[in-house]
């Protein structure tokens, strides 16, 4: 117990240090630097990855519905928070749409989570009775169904159909998303170490034994599913804020696969793993490798192969390499709590160990 308290304390200190670091960073560098974009997107992906890890890594439920709950979150947020005077312009084909009020961003954010959770509850009722891959394909299907409904012309006045939603309140600095994600992840970590979290792990390890110990399978699965979706919804809303505009068409199953990649590369059942992985993933796909897309001359010598699209090829090769070399992900199911090293190496990357 005591040991646990200490680690919590150190965790909080690290968190504080991280924010100080971020603040300093923001003051030091010009806002246009790519680093901030990466940090923003990375931290948001981190939340989504962690939420998916809660389901796939800690409960052993193989779900592929994440994108579906993200899109719900994103749209809920957008629909609720777009300033009224903008609506006429954005819902250009639906004369202003039906929603004619705007909630403050933070409320919208919460609603995003709640609505996603609510849908998860409905979806979970039938689907969670399915096992492993069948559950996966069923959840994948639900994500697609949700997308179809959002794009449905008939719902246009609410969702703006196929068209973008934009001009909803967003964040400028990097502190906002980091704070939001930090809170959410902290809650997830607390949950995982609570009695309920232990029950989830028990289910993952051995359903039959868990049930024989008096753990109600359906309730706990449903609980995990709903919680995960709640945070996926918030993640979706944050993603919307980060992008500044959203379109249902972009929340494809491919997005879920990306998240799943992050989770597995990070390590099933490792929070810190998911977080580290998402930063690496975002940074290498969006930033570090971009130069590969442009023809480059070193002196008179034209670098071969470099042309648009090459970035993604290299990126996917790296992913394959990581998958093949780190079978259980870079973290396995361990957590990153070598405190000094955390602080030293990745403190800036927002790694929160969870004692």
């Amino acid at each position, binding site marked *: 117990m005591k040991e646990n308290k200490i680690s919590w304390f150190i965790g909080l200190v690290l968190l504080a240090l991280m924010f100080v670091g971020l603040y300093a960073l923001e003051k030091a560098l010009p806002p246009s630097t790519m680093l901030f974009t990466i940090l923003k997107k990375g931290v948001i992906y981190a939340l989504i990855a962690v939420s998916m890890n809660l389901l796939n890594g800690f409960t052993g439920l193989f779900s592929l519905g994440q994108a579906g709950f993200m899109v719900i979150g994103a749209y809920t947020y957008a629909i609720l928070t777009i300033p009224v005077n903008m609506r006429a312009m954005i819902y250009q084909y639906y004369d202003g749409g039906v929603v004619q009020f705007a909630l403050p961003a933070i409320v919208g954010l919460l609603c995003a989570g709640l609505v996603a959770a609510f849908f998860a509850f409905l979806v979970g009722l039938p689907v969670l009775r399915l096992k492993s891959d069948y559950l996966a394909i069923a959840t994948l299907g639900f994500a697609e169904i949700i997308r179809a409904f959002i794009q449905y012309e008939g719902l246009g006045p609410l969702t703006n159909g196929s068209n973008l939603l934009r001009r909803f309140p967003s964040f400028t600095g990097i502190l906002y998303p980091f704070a939001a994600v930090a809170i959410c992840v902290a809650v997830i970590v607390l949950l995982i170490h609570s009695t309920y979290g232990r029950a989830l792990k028990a289910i993952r390890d051995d359903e039959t034994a868990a049930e024989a110990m008096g753990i109600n399978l359906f309730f706990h699965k449903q609980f995990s599913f709903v919680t995960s979706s709640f945070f996926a919804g918030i993640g979706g809303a944050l993603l919307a804020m980060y992008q500044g505009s959203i379109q249902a068409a972009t929340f494809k199953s491919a997005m879920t696969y990306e998240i799943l990649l992050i989770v597995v590369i990070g390590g099933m059942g490792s929070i810190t793993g998911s977080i580290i992985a998402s930063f690496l993933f975002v940074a290498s796909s969006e930033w570090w490798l971009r130069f590969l897309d442009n023809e480059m001359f070193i002196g008179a010598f034209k670098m071969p192969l470099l*042309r648009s699209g090459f970035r993604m090829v290299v990126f996917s090769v790296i992913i394959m390499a990581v*998958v*093949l070399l780190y079978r259980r992900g870079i973290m396995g199911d361990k957590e990153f709590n070598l405190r000094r090293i955390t602080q030293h190496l990745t403190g800036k990357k927002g790694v929160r160990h969870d004692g």
Partner: protein
Amino acid sequence: MGWLERFFPYILAGISVGGQYALIAIGYTMVYGILRLINFAHGDIFTVAGFFMVYMNATMPLYLSIPLTIILTVILGFAVERAAYKPLRDAPRMSIMISAIGVSYLLQNLMWYVTGGLAKQYPTIPWISSSVTVWVATTKIVTLVTPVLTILLVVLLQQLINHTKIGMAMRAVSRDFETAKLMGIQINRVISVSFIIGSFLAAVGSLLYFSNYATVTPTVGAMPGLKAFVAAVFGGIGSIPGAMIGAFLIGISENLIKALGYSTFSDAFTFALLIFVLLAKPTGLFGEKTIDKV
């Protein structure tokens, strides 16, 4: 206009689409039956086969390019298994599946890079590409050929699986991987064979598919791939006839949905249908029930 007369063209299209799904679905279902692996890369192998054809046809006549396409595709499928799945045999199931997603990612990006993301026109294969009028519907001959060929291939495949040594081995492995291993069945050989067959059918599928829809893009395989997988699950993943029937059902139903004017939900409907089937029969229409021992 009579009911049948009105819907005939849709049903015809549906059957043909179903046939194409089936050819891909079998690849999924065989691999799953043996490795319990959702081979996400399968849809992309199908697409790559399309590009093979496009590029080779530019340099050589059909009677060379068609067999070559099939061979290359088979080699690709085989190589993918050896490179990306075999090393992970004893790794957790999830990481093999991620490897599959990775491969699919890689193939798509490679195709994008090579083609520059531009749509390519598929070569027209004489005879099957030409139009024909069946009662009230005008369509390509390939539309009619596809389902027939599909059923033919499935029957052959069933023969292979039920009456040959390798087929027996396959069934053994899909029943009980470990025991089969202990019984001295060369697992790797069996797995390779199933990938080869799967890729072969994917190649044939892509020939038929793209002679019908003559545009090849790097992502064109994604949707048929997903639908085929759904079909495989629908029919009870692991069962080949199941996959075929599932594919035809999905193909026809989604076309009828479009006919009824709910095209917005044609995909959604497919998934809804799947979920309902799974809820009624948790292992699909023809999947065998499993009692988990305690």
